[in-house]
């Protein structure tokens, strides 16, 4: 409901709180903090070797729009031979060093720890709210835990993946697009009751 937020700055994150229908919470979104991130891109012709090296070190990369995890890392395929890798509790520099070591001569690593707002979106009505912007089939027949997509949502490019059957989805949204994304999400989830946390006072 765009009008709901007309008085709030479009350049700020929506303040944490409950939006829309009161008394129920069909959708929740929680900002994930303390998460390092990096892009890992396979060098020319080195995709298989990079996957093998990563798998050997405990992170089974999949060259597809899939999320996989291991060795304290979570990797999401964002394109052929391209992944976003996340690490909880690590610094950007530490993650980069770890990946560079793993990918020596096989891939390029770029720190993205400051690039995204990462949000966990879940709740019984999460799917119903998300289809208002996500043009990817989220039906359990088509999209399961471990499935990922990199796609525009409400004119904002995002990468997201399903993490469990709750269902819960993790979204990585470019930081400067995050205010617009949250406004869309809150508007879309308002009819189900929407709880947002982790953005403080916006």
């Amino acid at each position: 409901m765009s009008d709901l937020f007309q008085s709030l700055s479009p350049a700020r994150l929506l303040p944490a709180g409950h939006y829309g229908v009161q008394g129920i919470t069909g959708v929740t979104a929680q900002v994930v903090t303390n998460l390092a991130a990096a892009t890992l891109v396979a060098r020319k012709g080195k995709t298989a070797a990079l996957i093998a090296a990563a798998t050997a070190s405990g992170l089974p990369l999949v060259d597809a729009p899939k999320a996989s995890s291991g060795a304290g890392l979570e990797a999401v395929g964002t394109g052929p031979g391209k992944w976003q890798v996340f690490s909880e509790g690590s610094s950007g520099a530490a993650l980069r060093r770890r990946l560079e070591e793993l990918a020596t001569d096989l891939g390029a690593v770029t720190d993205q720890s400051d690039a995204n707002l990462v949000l966990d979106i879940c709740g019984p009505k999460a799917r119903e709210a998300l289809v208002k912007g996500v043009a990817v089939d989220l039906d359990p027949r088509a999209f399961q835990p471990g499935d990922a997509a990199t796609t525009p949502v409400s004119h904002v490019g995002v990468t997201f993946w399903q993490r469990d059957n709750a269902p819960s989805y993790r979204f990585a949204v470019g930081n400067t697009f995050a205010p617009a994304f949250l406004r869309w999400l809150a508007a879309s989830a308002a009819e189900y009751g929407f709880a947002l946390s982790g953005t403080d006072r916006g």
Partner: protein
Amino acid sequence: MTRLSAGGLIDRSRTLSFSFDGKSYTGHPGDTLASALLANGVRLVGRSFKYHRPRGIVTAGSEEPNALVELRSGARREPNTRATTIELFDALEATSQNRWPSLDVDLLSMNQLVSPFLGAGFYYKTFMWPAAFWEKVYEPMIRRAAGLGRAAEAADPDHYEKATHFCDVLVIGSGAAGLAAALAAGRSGARAVLTDEDFRLGGRLLSEQAEIDGRSAADFVARALAELSSLPNVRLMPRTTVFGAYDGGEFGAVEKVSDHLAVPAPFQPRQRLWRFIAKRSVLAAGAFDRPIVFPGNDRPGVMSALALATYATRFGVGAGPRAAGFTNNDHAVAALLDAAAAGVKLEAIADVREAVAPALAARAKALGVDLLTGSEVIATSGKCLSSVTVRTPKGVRTLSVEALGVSGGATPNVNLTCHQGGRPIWREDIAAFVPGALPVGMAVAGAAAGHLTLAESLADGTALGAAAAEDAGFAPVAAPAPVAGDAPNGLKAFWQVHAKGPAFVDQQNDVTAKDVALAHREGFRAVELLKRYTTMGMATDQGKTSNMAGLAIMAELTGKGIPQTGTTVFRPPYTPVALGVLAGHHRGVDFKPSRPTPTHQWAEEQGAVFVETGQWLRAAWFPKAGEDWQAAVNREVKATRESVGVIDVSTFGKIDLQGPDAGRLLDRVYINMFSTLGVGKARYGVMLREDGIVMDDGTTARLADDHYVMTTTTANAAKVFQHLEFCLQVLWPELDVCLASITEQWAQIAVSGPRSRDVLAKLVDGADVSNTGLPFMGALQTTVMGGVEARVFRLSFSGELGYEIAVPARHGDALMRAIMAAGAPYGITPYGVETLAVLRIEKGHVSGSELNGQTSARDLGLGRMASTKKDFIGRVMAGRPAFTDPDRPTFVGFRPVDRSARLKAGAHFLALGAAPTTENDEGYMTSVAYSPILGHSIGLGLLKRGPERIGETLRAYDPVRGGDIEVEVCSPHFVDPEGEKQRV
């Protein structure tokens, strides 16, 4: 009151009140506005578009040509809403349109008196001369008289949204064929969606007294819906109009979520735009009951025979105290007899045929309905219908009736089948067009396919629903199709009664049979020309009911036959779609994303005035108390040139390039060389499009042998990244380069001015930033603020000594505050994009106004940068003769001869004394600014042979903004032309 004593799918236990033209009425849940008006005896509901003739309700669906009303009031006022599709709600307010002073007495109905002059093509013929009158007199006059209804003047208080739904089988229409198809598909386990524009699913089954599997049609509908509701893989979507069939199995639809409520429930949208992505689709959109053209056929009370039956059976409403019929087919006769059985006092049915089906004749007799075969209605009378005149084989008869149900047969609703280019095909046996080539994955069932009986529809739906599921990968469950008895289905093609008086073909556009004849006489015979000349088939109903008779009359006139005459085809949308629902969430400040820079909050605290630059919100200037924008900018420019200024430049596109071939890639995309750039150095680069036009510019630094970081302009950040991806994926897949966008990752702040090094020195953790340690165009990876990773580039857009400091975005705000603190002793001044522009214009740097998609590197004075030792994108096309023509406008500076005059961007250059004509045009001003350093206006522009003409005086002529002054051609480098300041 013409509410029948019993029957109908309305809840008679509850009463809803509503108003029409200020008068209060009541209806019941389940009514439409149209059925409730008829139940209250309101037959006059509008005035016609051109002649302001009294008009009534003609149909019971979205094909309605006449009953257009303004719904609701104030900010929610909505013009041209079809009363036949409005679900009645309590306190509904509706108003008639296109009448003055009132619906009952409309003075513009005098147009009828001059109707001989208002025929087809009237505008084109009448308002030809004098030509000067068009804009001042004719157009305003026509605009005042034209148009139906008034849009709301206030902003729409409701909101709208969009959603996407994927399915295996999309069934469009929930009549017999649609229900059968949905059952067959749903039982197989396929994800099925059943849509209908109506608020009640069931289609024509809701209006028919037929038997299916030995039960009533209503019972069949109830059981089918119960079963479909129980299937988790089936989604029922009433109030949802599929308006467009697009490629790839994509459909557009509008769900009227809250249109049946006075005000949407909290947090509910008014309407929702659906995009269905369907593996297969079954179109079961039914057919329209088409009119017969006869004199007086537009009188309120004359309506479709099937609509009359619908009002009786579904809504328990008699269209008038007494009714009659005028038909050419058994289906309509049966429907009218159903109405009689429901309680309508049906006096007679005139049928053009010699005989109707014997079973129907017997039923008519049993119901006491006079069956007048071989007969035609030749006239009607009354402001609202009071009698009809019938020409029978035994002579002329007058029937005193208030309603007349007319049917010229069924027109299959093929609308969506045309959206991918399909052209309907004529079927002589049913005298109708049926679907031609279909959109991929679509099947058409039931009446929409020309299979007009109930039995055929049920069989069709079952078979096609199962086939669609099977095609989508599901095993259909073998189940017999529901069975209905054979109904008589005879028809004699009949379009027009030849008798005296205005006979309307298209009631919505006031097109008469005479207009069609006029179009024929004047040579507008092709159907597309007929439509445009007469306006037949235009506006909200798109000729759903009227087109066929119009075509048939033209075919009769040309003697060519209907299939040779052809039909117009349909484009989306099937019914009108509100712009609001197409915009969805994206209006007002949500029109597009607003991207804040990492220092946005800090800038807010400084009282910055922000400006939208693309999606970004950037500080435009930082006014101090009492300053206007010009004063603020002048102060910011002076402070930067005299001491030090600071600006957030995080909006530049930033791209990380790694891999052994990164230098090679850069050599091919930039006109100048990058593979030879030393590590720790940056270089300004220009890239061209393939056609030789400049695409973007920016600096790229080499951080390691196989690692570069590129900056692009703010505007082209995404485009340049896409371009590099294209180069790597398509042009040179052999290059080993890995790309990553790092625009979001890094905050970047530019510090400029003679004291900028002093500021930087306080920020770095001990790095040598002296002129030798970090020389001009140097790049340094270091840490700042006690351990924060940083990249420092010694670059200058302003022409001053300057640095750009990049830190991970989370530190951007802290870096800005640290810079401000470090610069405080020097009076460091934050500046915005206005000052940025003044600084670069003073320095003669090109920017967006010059990189405008029309200029080559040579035009911008950057031609000499182009390397001759390598190939690069755009090199060949930049060398074409037009691009090397010495007369081509080329980049140069300008100043006003009268230094107090103000230059204007967009002004064109002319030789002194030359007339302002295109032939004399010598170029134009691209950018201007007031230079506080020089104390006068300065400009950059593109002038024929510009650099050769420094010192010349020209005329800068600007008729658009007003301005005609003399300017001197000068070097574009107004400040520090030798470029010494940035190298100290």
